[in-house]
């Protein structure tokens, strides 16, 4: 029997679908004969009492989740998400550099740095990628800190805002599609496949309403992993191998029959009735991996 700690924050329980998914993990653990406890940030010092740590709180090298992951890893525990995956997936500059190095098909991407940011550079980017382009902060997650710009003024405004936190940013070609594929991968195996639809009149899965803090999310269609296109699964697995062997959610765009990786996310969303709809065994597979 393994003792698994699930590191969560209070916000993980604010959406009933996510709360249900967390309970599903607990039930799957009990079914397989393992102990599964929720661990909040006030008791992270209890990490050495466990055999494995499963992180569900948002990860970033600057968040407590990274301290939890690194501590568990230093103590020799199995951990999802492992520190290396958090470092690479939490920094898109790192991720796209690796995609470039290993020839992973991805959206055409350029890096801009704060020190060399100049009018001429913006013109060159528009000449190469056309208008609009997408500026992405390296620490983007849940569709935040990704903005579309179509003129120099808005390019400058968005870039300067993102430069406050990071000295390097990514700029990508705009590729509008009706949906993004989301492929869940665990330890080099496909876990689930779904389509994240783009809300009508928007260009990304999670879009903010103009002038309001509310975010509207596109619908999610799940499919059996066996029914997903083979080429899609191949691209997803190839992209994950560059990063590690943990749990990932790969976002992929399909254009003219070709698949290009948008990004690989560690700590992918798992909501009951969404990602798990056609692949109910994902809970058991993740628990079994942690307890192995």
């Amino acid at each position, binding site marked *: 029997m393994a003792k698994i700690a699930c590191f969560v924050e209070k916000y993980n329980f604010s959406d009933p679908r996510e709360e249900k998914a967390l309970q599903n993990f607990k039930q799957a653990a009990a079914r397989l004969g393992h102990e599964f406890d929720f661990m909040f940030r006030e008791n992270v010092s209890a990490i050495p009492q466990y055999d494995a740590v499963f992180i569900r709180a948002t990860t970033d090298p600057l968040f407590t989740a990274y301290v939890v992951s690194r501590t568990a890893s230093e103590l020799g525990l199995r951990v999802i998400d492992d520190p290396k995956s958090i470092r690479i997936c939490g920094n898109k*500059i790192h991720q796209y550099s690796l995609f470039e190095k290993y020839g992973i098909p991805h959206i055409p991407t350029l890096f801009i740095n704060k020190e060399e940011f100049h009018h001429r550079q913006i013109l060159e980017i528009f000449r190469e990628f056309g208008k609009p382009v997408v500026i992405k902060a390296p620490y983007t997650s849940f569709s935040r800190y990704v903005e579309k710009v179509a003129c120099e003024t808005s390019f400058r405004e968005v870039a300067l805002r993102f430069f406050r936190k990071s000295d390097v940013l990514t700029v990508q070609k705009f590729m509008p599609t009706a949906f993004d594929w989301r492929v869940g991968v665990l330890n080099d195996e496909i876990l689930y496949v779904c389509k994240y639809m783009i809300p009508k009149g928007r260009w990304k899965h999670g879009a903010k309403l103009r002038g309001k803090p509310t975010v509207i999310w596109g619908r999610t269609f799940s499919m059996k992993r066996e029914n997903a296109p083979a080429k899609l699964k191949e691209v997803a697995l190839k992209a994950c191998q560059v990063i590690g062997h943990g749990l990932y959610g790969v976002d992929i765009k399909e254009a003219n029959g070709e698949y290009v990786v948008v990004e690989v996310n560690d700590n992918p969303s798992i909501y009951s009735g969404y990602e798990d709809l056609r692949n109910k065994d994902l809970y058991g597979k993740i628990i079994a991996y942690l307890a192995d």
Partner: protein
Amino acid sequence: MRPTTFLRSSIKDFILNLNNDYRYLKTGYYVSMHAEVLGNRVIPSSESIIDANRTPILLLKASKAGIPTMPYLVTDSVKRIMSAFSFPVVVFAVNPFSYDGFRTANNKSALYRAVKSLGMNYKFTVCVQPLRGEIVSFKSIFGKCEQDQALQEISEKVYGVFGIPICKLHAQRVGHAAFLCGLQPLKKEEVDSQDLKLIMEEISQMSNLGEHLVG
């Protein structure tokens, strides 16, 4: 070579990344990351940069390497801190925004203030250690410092484990013993002519070995 020039290059060699500020997402971090993507050996590594700047990870790795450290607690709960340690205590931030300094607390209300402030209204955790002596903050350049032997040993070992060439260390001196407490980047104005001389000496030694230097 300037960091921005290196970020555009594809040099394949050993890289010494010199910067006063190695914080995550800053140029100092990207230089090490870029060197690693190119397959180069680099000092410091991007992993060490993150580890050294997160106090709980710094202390965990340091104690594993035999560097004297005090026990520590990562939490956002004042009650838990008070049940673990007696006053006074020293509190370090574990949030994405604060990277310098610490707070000491001699009583409950001071501890509440410190946890509230460094935890950004209890949104993030803090790293708390018991304070048994006096805190000494000093510059460490390539593991060298102008302090007593106990602190010099800490400085050398921290450089050995994390490889951060330029930084400020916080340690507790308790009698003749010293305990590592934290690490933070140096501000540009804190680097004086003596430090530059020391850096130049190290650089010339490495240049003689034919290494690439970025800074």
